């Protein structure tokens, strides 16, 4: 017996025409027009405001292109890597480490809490409280305890990723209709078999969705953690540029951070759709 509908097996692979249609749907002309409009409004605003307040969109893009590989001015302010590229890599590494560690802890805790009431009763209040603490309250403690460096920024992001994935994993496992596990048990499945064949396939799609949300937020948190105290990274660059009253540089850096987050999110969305093919939610 198979759960896959027969037409899925016989469906032809997407033709060139349908691929072109998908591409057109992604590059919706109206959406592109929205971006153009946004840039136009920005451009019009710059006409009335001095460049020190609002730089022109062109200037910001040119600045980003120029500073990406080499920005010697940054080294005068004490940033280790005198280019945006190196700092972006530093930030991305920290985000990756934090998301991996945080998601392992968060998913395990969430799944356990969904199956054992006593664990849930113990962890829930801690997570609920931890989730409400604004990051800027937690950050100074980590900076003093762990010092200025990679560890405190990564800890801060791990803390946040754990809370999000705990909630997502718990919800995914709680919402799973008990009928699946019951009938598997009736048919003689072992606990390990239930985890492998029921719990994981059923919860992975929702957990991956949570992972995407955590990943999207992690960029901003990492940046702010670096802004408060670090030797390199995008946040450090922002701090330095803010000190130098350089809105063009700030906006160029923010633009790069936003673009990086969008690209990573798109890759993650693709990977999620690939990994959780069986799920309706990921389509």
């Amino acid at each position, binding site marked *: 017996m198979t759960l896959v509908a027969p037409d899925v097996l016989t469906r032809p692979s997407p033709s060139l025409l349908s691929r072109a249609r998908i591409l057109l749907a992604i590059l*919706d002309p*109206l*959406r*592109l*027009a*929205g*971006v153009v*409009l*946004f840039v136009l409004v920005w451009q019009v605003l710059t006409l009335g405001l001095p460049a020190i*307040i609002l730089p022109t969109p062109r200037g910001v893009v040119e600045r980003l292109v120029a500073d990406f590989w080499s920005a010697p001015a940054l080294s005068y302010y004490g940033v280790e890597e005198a280019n945006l590229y190196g700092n972006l890599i530093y930030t991305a590494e920290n985000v990756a480490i934090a998301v991996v560690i945080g998601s392992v802890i968060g998913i395990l805790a969430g799944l356990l809490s969904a199956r054992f*009431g*006593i664990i*849930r*009763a*113990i962890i*829930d*209040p*801690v997570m609920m*409280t931890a*989730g*409400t*603490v*604004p*990051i*800027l*309250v*937690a950050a*100074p*403690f980590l*900076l*003093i*305890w762990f010092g200025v460096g990679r560890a405190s920024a990564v800890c801060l992001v791990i803390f946040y990723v754990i809370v999000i994935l705990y909630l997502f994993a718990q919800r995914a496992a709680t919402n799973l209709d008990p009928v699946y596990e019951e009938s598997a048990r009736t048919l003689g499945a072992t606990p390990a078999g239930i985890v492998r064949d029921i719990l994981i396939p059923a919860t992975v799609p929702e957990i991956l969705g949570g992972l995407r949300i955590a990943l*999207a937020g992690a*960029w*901003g*948190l990492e*940046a*702010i953690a670096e*802004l408060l105290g670090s030797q390199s990274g*995008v*946040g450090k660059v*922002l*701090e330095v*540029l*803010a000190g130098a*009253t350089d*809105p063009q540089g*700030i*906006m160029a850096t*923010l633009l790069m*951070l*936003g673009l990086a*987050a*969008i690209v990573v*999110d798109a890759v993650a969305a693709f990977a999620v759709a690939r990994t959780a093919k069986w799920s309706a939610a990921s389509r």
Partner: protein
Amino acid sequence: MITSHVHRDRWISVAVFLTLAAIWQVLSMVYTAEAQPGEPMIAGWQVLFTNTFLAMSDYWQGGFGVPAVADGAARSYPAAFLAVASHSIDTIGRLAIGLAVGGAAGLLFGLAVSWSRWTRRLFDWPLQFLRTLPLLAMVPLFQLWFGTYFLGEVLFVAYGIGVIVFAGTVNAVRNVPQIYIDNARSLGASRWTLCRTIVLPAIFPAMRSTILLSLGAGWSAVLGAEYLGAQSGLGYIIVYAQQFAYLDRMFFIALLFIVYTSISYWAIGRLSARWLAWAPPSQRR
């Protein structure tokens, strides 16, 4: 059965918090390193509620018959209490005004953009991009634009909340079942009536999570605004305490924050649950 579970869980959470408090106390006794002379890295409760609380009177500006420490008066409990209260009021006031302005603006813009499928598509990408930008990393930009005055702080909070409410509104309107709208249209409803009687009530259940989300962003934003330049508020105290490595004061303010944020989440949760009493449970997300 269920009530006994709730009862048991409540006792467990009380026990968890008491255990955490005890662990903190033990840590403070075991790990006695000091950030600087007289300032323990981990301050025990006996320090927090005496020395630390008294030290809060340093932040009292004077008034109500209680002189400021800066004017030569000794630290006193009334001054400490007044200092905590006045800085809390400043922070909460900024948050409240920002929430009101940002929430209203976000909702209005969101509804305007949702006017038709065309406008929604037109604003989709710029909106997505604005949402990607890390809010707290934009503090320097707002500081540059609006200075460190009250207006800049409130605008920053309002922007942070507005973007979330805006995106939430657009998303919620998109999920309103088309059949509701078609039905009202075929009965001759105008756009205005449609918005007032169909769309607004229909999006409200979905907006609940948006409101809770924006509350969290609001607390972060108000701290972010105070971090970089405000002359009052709880964030201001944290910044000054950090500069002198007064960890006990930072911990005291952090505890205050936990209390405030928990109360605000609880209040908004209760309030929205009451407003949503009419909605079917499956819609109350």
